[in-house]
């Protein structure tokens, strides 16, 4: 059902092959197709609206390049604007000079937090750091077990304790990190809906008492129009430092990534590309924009022209 944007554009442009300028009139149908492609990629409607205005402004008046087709030229404009919206790119994690760096992951249920904790621990360990995983999800059945299994697989220590208070678990983890000489603490929190006031308050308590240095929002690439609502609320509650987009290994177009970036202003740091613990990659806007538009090498083609 998702045709390549280019294919759709070429049918929208029909017989339009005029040499000369891109004008409002001659790109109208084409831009409609772009809008559809973005909505089918689950880019938030509000974001799409603003974006389309910008693209229109930038495209109109452009000289048509003789060696490429007009639809290819439009795709290039759209592509470049999207990349700009996704940036700037910064997949680094800032570490504290003294004492352990505390990283907290949060997000909706099932978005991939626990798995991503493992992936981060693996990545940081490979860079010579000593991570401690902290099982602060006391909600989901066997959440602690899940993190323990992951810790075993990575040979990374996991802190947990029989408690019903996640704030206390996180606090106690600090002492444990010192005992084990760990320089990075990764907090796995329970999934929660942004409208769940009680659980959101609990998260704020952790932030207040434990003061994580980096708070990452774990966002499922499959998310639809509601992505900005949840990301916005988490950002309001916690001041996010970064977003990690998961499940990008399928055919999800990942419009949520763009929407979340645009609405929160928080950069995407990493993407999850599979269930296994080595499937974490630094965020690459080129790649996700390509996926969003469903296009191959058009951009290179236009760039070369």
């Amino acid at each position, binding site marked *: *059902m998702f045709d390549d944007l280019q294919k759709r554009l070429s049918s929208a442009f029909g017989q339009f092959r005029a040499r000369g300028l891109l004008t409002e009139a001659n790109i109208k149908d084409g831009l409609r197709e772009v809008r*559809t492609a973005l*909505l*089918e*990629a*689950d880019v*938030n*409607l*509000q974001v799409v609206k603003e974006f389309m205005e910008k693209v229109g402004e930038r495209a109109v008046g452009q000289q048509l390049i003789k060696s490429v087709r007009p639809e290819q030229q439009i795709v290039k404009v759209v592509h470049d604007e999207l990349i700009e919206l996704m940036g700037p790119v910064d997949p680094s994690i800032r570490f504290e000079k003294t004492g352990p760096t505390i990283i907290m992951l949060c997000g*909706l*249920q*099932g*978005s*991939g937090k*626990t798995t991503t904790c493992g992936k981060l621990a693996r990545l940081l360990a490979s860079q010579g750091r000593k991570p401690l995983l902290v099982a602060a999800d006391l*909600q*989901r*059945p*066997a959440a602690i*077990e*899940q*993190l*323990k*299994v*992951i810790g075993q*697989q990575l040979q990374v220590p996991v802190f947990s304790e029989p408690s019903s208070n996640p704030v206390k678990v996180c606090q106690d983890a600090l002492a444990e990190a010192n005992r084990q000489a760990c320089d990075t603490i990764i907090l796995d929190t329970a999934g929660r*809906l*942004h*409208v769940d006031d009680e659980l959101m308050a609990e998260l704020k308590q952790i932030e207040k008492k434990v003061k994580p240095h980096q708070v990452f929002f774990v966002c*499922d690439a*499959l*998310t*639809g*129009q*509601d*992505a*900005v*609502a*949840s990301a*916005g*609320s988490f950002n309001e509650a916690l001041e996010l430092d970064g977003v990690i987009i998961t*499940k990008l*290994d*399928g*055919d*999800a*177009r990942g*419009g*949520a990534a763009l929407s979340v970036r645009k609405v929160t202003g928080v950069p995407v740091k990493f993407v999850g590309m599979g*269930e296994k613990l080595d499937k974490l990659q630094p965020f690459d806007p080129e790649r996700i924009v390509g996926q969003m538009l469903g296009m191959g090498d058009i951009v290179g083609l236009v760039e070369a022209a």
Partner: protein
Amino acid sequence: SKTAQLFNIRSWFGRKVDQSFLDDLEARLIQADVGVKSTQRIVDRVREAYSDKTADDDLLNFVKAELKALLVDPRPGTLAVSPSKPTVYLIAGVNGSGKTTSIAKLAQRLKDEGKTILLAACDTFRAAAADQLTVWATRSGSDIVKGAPGADPASVAHDACDRALARGADVLIVDTAGRLHTQSHLMRELEKVRGVLHRKISGAPHEVLLVLDATNGQNAIRQAEVFTKSIGCTGVILTKLDGTAKGGVVVAVRQTIDLPVKFIGVGEGIDDLQPFDADTFVESLFT
């Protein structure tokens, strides 16, 4: 957080049905994840029937009726029951959609009807997946069959069938690992599990339920198509409707393939499962 309440549809009454009106209707549906194509279909129908008229209750009811007619299931919340024991339900879906939790809820519901339940932990891949199902089995008073981590899911299904037959369980519910529909080797693995159930128990699986996450956007259409092609889904459980996501993608799913929504998930607790009600669902799209 403001997108969910774009507008109160009643405030439209008295407006002329012109392009700006239709644009507003379109926006409402898109924001509920109904998708461009399905939205276009509905907007076109409204344009045909109401162009230049004044929006009123009648128009609103027209739109709602279109959606309800599409989504209605003559037997919501009911699942096929096999004439001979056990009835087998196979549960599948992408990662983290809510399969295991929905199984717990389903088990509790059937248990409340006086049935004996066996759960098969065929997710041998995800860390502690079997432990998670075990906790739920205990809470719902169900029996469980599991394999070692990394074991062949089909062999766990095989053992579960044997146990269900030996114990005379009324219902066998099979949990499977989450997988993206694009992972063809994992889809084949799922087909193998289905094959085992089919060979071991007459008429099984009696329902194949696809668990869709209401926060998912248009990708859910592909999920529904590919899972159905692979293992013949018979219905949907739509989870996480307790958030602000509308789950409108089931409209698009239904317009693409004939897959009724059977239940909705409205929380993480064992009782948070409800029969799908098209009326309530459609009303919620417009509030």
